[in-house]
């Protein structure tokens, strides 16, 4: 503290030194925009006719020494240059008129530094608060879908799950490929904990309340984000929150209310002709094989033509066997989200403040699912002393769910599994009373499933997350060109889940109870020094140096009562068997120093360099320090060559090169011995199945990017082109090795993957009239080509498994595009015709093949907006083209005969062929009316698989429909269920109306805005039947495997925003 006082004491002396050179006066003031009274940080103030100048600070304030006879020339991008005479005024406030140009904007860049967009040597794209808050997505990540070139979002299933975001393709073969989220300068966690537990828990960034967001800036990869270090190789999403400064007129209250309704967008197309059973036969006795095929959970049974058959509800009596076409549809409910928020904010000379509260209640489309969230934020700026500012931001979130929908196709918790293994005659409404008087479940089947309502109401998973994140930043303006910042931020949460499986649940007769608790914490302390100086009339310099200490802590406590002693009591004490318990802790620390410098020449040529060194605890001491630089530049040709005109409003070229190092997870160096559950009194330790590596090196990603920005015809056409290439090497892979080595996995440090691509953003304003009507079209397009260059130095590893579903694997395969779907294929002859076995079924190639890639070839979006006075209408169409998906819904539903696609060939009416059985053989008959020899039964469901025998003859063996579909669609033949995942989706329609000022003034309101928003309206193109091709099951790299998804939802909502 004494030092600070001393330093403060020195300052007047320093200032006096400056003053003593001339008979000048010290002029200060605030630069604002005349349009909206907002302050203009970064405005350049010059004494006209000299090279003497300064820049306005973050609050738009400036101080300059000038003669009383001087004229100040104030300029800033996006504003017309203003000239103001100094006179005898010590305080000169300047209001700038805006220019009409949209391209000349200020964007938030790494470390939260606002920079003129034209000075940047890389692509950057921003979303403003309106785009995020109105089209309210419950998962923040979804709001980025389709709007930003090169950003790929994979939406959550149902409306409650996780969403995955990847920028410019996957740069890590095995590691995390999602970007780093930075909120007001501090990293916030976006991990998805508890993957593979039968629930798709939302990724952690979905905690952030969209109402609090002022802007989102997307830094696409190392070129833009190198300053952030290790975790920036996948890009950075920078979130800037709203502050009291954003409030107009000193004090304001904003109320935001939103109601959104969700309906199932797509359900499988079921057949309604044949009911439960096998071989055309069914009769219910006990639902577990006691009757005729009544344990069978497939729909290869009798025709649902009203014939009389005992069914699950009929107590042995034969009753009409009839279809219930909406039996699955009726199970789903209308989900809704209610969102209410209140924000109070204001600003005065000394303080800016904003407090907000938000409550979100979301109810899912599956019965008894939902989540509710309360968010409290406080954002304050204290101008403690003229040069000392304290910013604080605090956010507390309590997110709680009584039950989340089950996924992963597990019997105990996934109803989508049960509906795709189903009796099409089952009347789901009869299952609503799911419990028998004795407490057991009442269901259509007892060999595999519990009642779907039982699953929803009894086998629940609850979640409670308490989260705090926030930061405090102290800024001190040492000199008018030198600022010091100290920032401390933390993100801390506790996340507890409780898994209940009820007594009598099928397959788990005693039920179970599990508690799974996590603690996640990241703390960052950062110090920076920032110098901005106009070196001469031509040159300005902006230098930043700093250091950071990051600490991560993670803890998991898992306890399970594997069998309950007493039913309906869910505590860990209530256990028949010893508890299964695990706990794990981890810590990580990274020290960093970094620096950046920007040299500007005449405000049209800019050179930026950055450098950073990290020391990570996760790497061995000899390799734990790693340095990486970046350099980029931009040249505004239209200014430099003075060719600016109405036709060509902007022409800029840019380019750069960057490198980023990356560490690994904690504890990857020294082998350990894991515990197994004790055998009676004997504790068990085993040799780990992972062989770790003592000599890990950091992963290195290098990236090159060049681009061009142009504006034409008064900026009615705006173009931004980017070409990039990145290469990541020394990738740390926990690779599968032959178990014969004694291990299943070995940690390696050799993988290499490259990505290159182009991004195009085109904005056109076809119509803009004097009356205020305006039509904007924004198009974005991105193509990314990835290639797995190498997996290990020795070259014996050809594949790295990213994920799998049965036989089907998702691979990073050497020499291939990332995300290959590798599975069992049809065996084909030299003419590429499918070979058929002697029994008429398709032959399976003994060697697995690559059947597609989940990564799309290109993505794009078109956003149209029409504005007229207070009305705006926008709609977004987006697309992903050229990826593939392996659909579990399709292969299962075709196998079980529930899908409409299994109707062809099932009877004469559906094109089936006549045949009779002779021993194990089917003999085709010439017509349906023909009789079979020896009075054998004539079947009418014959199908011939379209293929050729090994010796080249056209296949002519007839299969019964059930045998046919089971031979083509099963877990040992994947090719038949791989589909083109390309789609074009009508993603969003938004109609907004801002009440005219005359009206709001009369009501003494600041503004009133109403918006109608519809999302996920439908497909304009889709190739895969029965499912939504863009569903994520988790946020990992093993995508492209659809395993009985919960249907995607279509949502329609209304948003009301009132400011007082």
């Amino acid at each position: 503290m004494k030092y600070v006082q001393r330093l403060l004491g020195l300052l007047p002396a320093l200032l006096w030194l400056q003053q003593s050179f001339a008979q000048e006066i010290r002029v200060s003031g605030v630069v604002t925009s005349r349009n909206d009274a907002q302050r203009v940080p970064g405005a350049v103030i010059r004494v006209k006719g000299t090279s003497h100048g300064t820049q306005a600070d973050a609050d738009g304030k400036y101080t300059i020494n000038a003669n009383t006879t001087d004229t100040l020339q104030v300029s800033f991008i996006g504003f017309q240059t203003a000239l103001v005479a100094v006179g005898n005024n010590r305080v000169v406030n300047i209001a700038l008129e805006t220019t009409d140009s949209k391209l000349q904007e200020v964007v938030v860049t790494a470390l939260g530094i606002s920079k003129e967009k034209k000075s940047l040597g890389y692509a950057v794209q921003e979303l403003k608060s309106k785009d995020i808050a109105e089209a309210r997505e419950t998962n923040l990540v979804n709001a980025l879908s389709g709007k930003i070139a090169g950003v790929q979002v994979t939406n959550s299933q149902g409306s409650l799950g996780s969403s995955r975001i990847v920028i410019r393709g996957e740069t890590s073969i095995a590691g995390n490929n999602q970007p780093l989220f930075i909120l007001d300068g501090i990293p916030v966690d976006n991990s998805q904990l508890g993957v593979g537990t039968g629930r798709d828990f939302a990724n952690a960034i979905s905690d952030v309340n969209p109402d609090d967001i002022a802007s989102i800036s997307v830094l696409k990869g190392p070129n833009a984000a190198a300053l952030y270090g290790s975790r920036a190789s996948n890009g950075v999403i920078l979130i800037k929150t709203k502050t009291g400064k954003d409030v107009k007129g000193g004090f304001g209250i904003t109320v935001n209310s939103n109601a959104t309704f969700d309906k199932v967008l797509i359900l499988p197309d079921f057949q309604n002709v044949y009911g439960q059973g096998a071989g055309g036969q069914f009769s219910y006795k006990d639902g577990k094989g006691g009757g005729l095929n009544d344990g069978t959970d497939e729909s290869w049974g009798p025709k649902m033509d009203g014939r009389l058959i005992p069914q699950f509800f009929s107590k042995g009596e034969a009753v009409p066997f009839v279809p219930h076409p909406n039996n699955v549809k009726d199970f789903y409910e209308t989900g809704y989200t209610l969102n209410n928020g209140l924000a109070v904010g204001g600003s005065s000379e000394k303080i800016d403040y904003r407090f907000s509260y938000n409550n979100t209640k979301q109810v899912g489309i599956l019965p008894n699912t939902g989540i509710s969230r309360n968010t409290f934020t406080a954002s304050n700026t204290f101008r403690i002393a003229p040069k000392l500012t304290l910013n604080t931001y605090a956010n507390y979130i309590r997110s709680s769910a009584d039950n989340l929908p089950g996924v992963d196709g597990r019997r105990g918790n996934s109803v989508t599994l049960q509906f795709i293994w189903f009796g099409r005659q089952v009347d789901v409404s009869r299952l609503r009373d799911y419990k028998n008087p004795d407490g057991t479940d009442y269901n259509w089947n007892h060999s595999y499933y519990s009642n779907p309502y039982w699953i929803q109401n009894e086998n629940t998973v609850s979640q409670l997350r308490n989260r705090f994140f926030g930061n405090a930043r102290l800024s001190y303006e040492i000199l008018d060109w030198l600022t010091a910042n100290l920032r401390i931020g933390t993100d801390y949460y506790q996340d507890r889940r409780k898994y209940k499986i009820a007594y009598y649940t099928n397959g788990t007769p005693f039920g179970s109870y599990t508690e799974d608790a996590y603690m996640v914490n990241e703390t960052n302390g950062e110090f920076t020094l920032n110098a901005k100086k106009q070196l001469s009339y031509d040159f300005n310099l902006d230098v930043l140096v700093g250091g950071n200490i990051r600490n991560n802590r993670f803890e998991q406590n898992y306890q399970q009562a594997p069998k309950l002693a007493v039913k309906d009591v869910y505590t860990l004490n209530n256990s028949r068997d010893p508890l299964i318990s695990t706990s794990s802790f981890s810590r990580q620390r990274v020290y960093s120093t970094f620096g950046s410098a920007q040299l500007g020449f005449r405000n049209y040529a800019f050179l930026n360099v950055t450098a950073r060194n990290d020391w990570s605890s996760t790497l061995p001491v000899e390799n734990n320090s790693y340095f990486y630089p970046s350099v980029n530049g931009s040249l505004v040709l239209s200014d430099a060559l003075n060719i600016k005109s109405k036709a060509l409003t902007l022409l800029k070229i840019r380019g750069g090169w960057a490198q980023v190092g990356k560490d690994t997870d904690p504890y990857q160096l020294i082998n350990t011995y894991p515990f197994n559950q004790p055998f009676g009194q004997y504790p068990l330790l085993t040799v780990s199945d992972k062989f770790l590596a003592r000599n890990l090196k950091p992963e290195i990603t290098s990236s090159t990017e060049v681009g061009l920005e142009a504006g034409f015809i008064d900026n009615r056409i705006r173009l931004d082109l980017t070409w990039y290439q990145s290469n990541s090497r020394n990738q740390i892979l926990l690779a599968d090795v032959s178990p014969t080595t004694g291990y299943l996995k070995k940690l390696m440090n050799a993988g290499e993957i490259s990505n290159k691509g182009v991004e195009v953003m085109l904005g056109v304003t076809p119509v803009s009239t004097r009356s205020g009507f305006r039509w904007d079209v924004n198009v974005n397009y991105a193509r990314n080509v990835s290639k797995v260059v190498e997996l290990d130095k020795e070259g014996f590893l050809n594949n790295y498994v990213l994920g799998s579903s049965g036989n089907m694997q998702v691979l990073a395969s050497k020499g291939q595009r990332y995300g290959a779907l590798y599975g069992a294929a049809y065996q084909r002859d030299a003419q590429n015709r499918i070979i058929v076995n002697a029994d008429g079924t398709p032959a399976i190639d003994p060697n697995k093949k690559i059947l597609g890639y989940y990564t799309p070839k290109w993505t794009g979006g078109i956003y149209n907006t029409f504005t007229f006075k207070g009305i705006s209408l926008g709609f977004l169409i987006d697309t992903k083209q050229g990826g593939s998906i392996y659909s579990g819904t399709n292969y299962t539903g075709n196998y079980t005969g529930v899908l409409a696609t299994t109707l062809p060939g099932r009877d004469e009416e559906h094109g089936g062929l006549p045949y009779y059985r002779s021993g194990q053989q089917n003999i085709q008959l010439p017509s349906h009316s023909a009789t079979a020899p020896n009075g054998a039964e004539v079947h009418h469901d014959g199908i011939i698989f379209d293929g050729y025998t090994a010796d080249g003859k056209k296949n002519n063996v007839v299969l019964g429909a059930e045998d046919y579909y089971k031979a083509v669609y099963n877990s040992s033949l994947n090719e038949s269920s791989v589909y083109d995942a390309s789609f074009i989706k009508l993603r969003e329609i938004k109609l907004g109306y801002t009440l005219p000022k005359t009206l709001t003034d009369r009501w003494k309101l600041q503004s009133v805005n109403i918006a109608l928003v519809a999302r996920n309206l439908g497909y304009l193109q889709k190739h895969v039947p029965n499912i939504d091709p863009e569903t994520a099951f988790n946020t990992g790299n093993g995508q492209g495997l659809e395993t009985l998804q919960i249907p995607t939802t279509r949502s329609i909502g209304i948003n009301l925003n009132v400011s007082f």
Partner: protein
Amino acid sequence: MKKLLIPTYLLFAIVLLASCRKELERINKNPNEPTTVQPDYLLSNGIKANVDTYWGPDAAMDGTLLYVQYWSKIQYTDADRYIAGATGTQNVWSNFYAQGIEDFTTLAQLGDSLHNPNYKAVAVIMRSWIFQQLTDLYGDVPYKQAGQISQYLTPVYDSQKDVYTGLLDELKQAAATVTPGSNFIDGDILLGGDVTRWKQFANGLRLRIALRIADREPAIAKTVFDEVTAGGAGALLPKDAVVKLNYLASPNQNPVGRNRETRNDYRISKSVVDKLKALNDPRLSIYATVPKDTNVIIGVTNGLPSDSAARLGFSKTSDAGAVFTATTAPAVLFSYAEQQFILAEAAQRGLLTGDPLTLYNQAIAASFVQYGLSEAAAAAYAVQPGVAYDALNFKKSIGEQKWLALFGQGVEAFTEWRRLDYPQLKAAYAGALGGSMPVRFKYPSSEQALNGSNYKAAVTRQGADLLTTKLWFDKY
């Protein structure tokens, strides 16, 4: 002054940096798991984990128990129709190698470093037992280079002959180094730390392997029998001893018991029921249960299509007996009964001196006693025409009776059936092998990707990687 200050700062910075680095290293010490292991914990784990694999769903229930027609399936009949699931063959391979070979290799090293030869001997015996299961099932397998990841990331497959003969050497060495009365071992959940019993088990395995290769390498087999019998009666399992793991209550229950807690997919095979009935064998009521709806034991034909299997009725067909399906049922690794069958056949083949008939009858009696029946009942049973020892067709007598005695021990029964070609079994009703029966497991498909060239070499040497490719030991 200034000149002095700079180096001081520099020094200070260097010290600070060095201490930071130490701090980073300390942070990265794993607090969750130990970095060293004690031998008894490793031994307990190795036994439990590998006996689970041996007796579990992949090696036994959906594999050998069906192939050798002890069990059959009434639901999900694919496995019973020789449509092997990809995961089953992978699990057996992965578990045996990554849990078994690695745990016991580490234990053997610990035995050396702790100067406790008994730990080492037990580790080598268990590891040999695992390798024997592996080669019995797959044929050529990585052996000499297995479990040494630092040197061999892609271990070479050894021929089955090299594996068996290598195991004979290792077992001989292990049996010789056992020191009863000193160097106590702990954590022995199989034999309670009785190293003499371990030695007898090792010798039993030597005899088992020697007989296995007798069709191919009679001279080697003869030497082994000579060496083992030279050790006198104490070298072999005493009368009615059984090497078995006694399972405990849940969660340490028998894998079969665990399956039966929630599933109802398996039945006893019609083949074994018919044989037991034909021979009026009292073990029938122990091996099989009486179904709920009938009072007759009814087996299910192997390899029925799913719908016809299910139509037989869950409550009208018999499951395996409680001795096998109970929570605490034991898993048998080796028994006196098997030992006497081995000796009987060896005597018949002239590999040792002895009376095959006496040994054969001892073996049957031992099997009866193992399942709580009397020796008298065995004696009466053994004189029946279908049972009585036939020296002229010893493979039939021994093959059938050994098959009945080994009930439940899928891997060994499957292997001995292949070697002796008795009992004569009919392929699964709707089998997927064109009327043939499986005579091995397929290698897991992961080997193609992860150890490709060695895999290819093995397939070239051994024959196509199919269920129907005969292994080296299976000469006839």
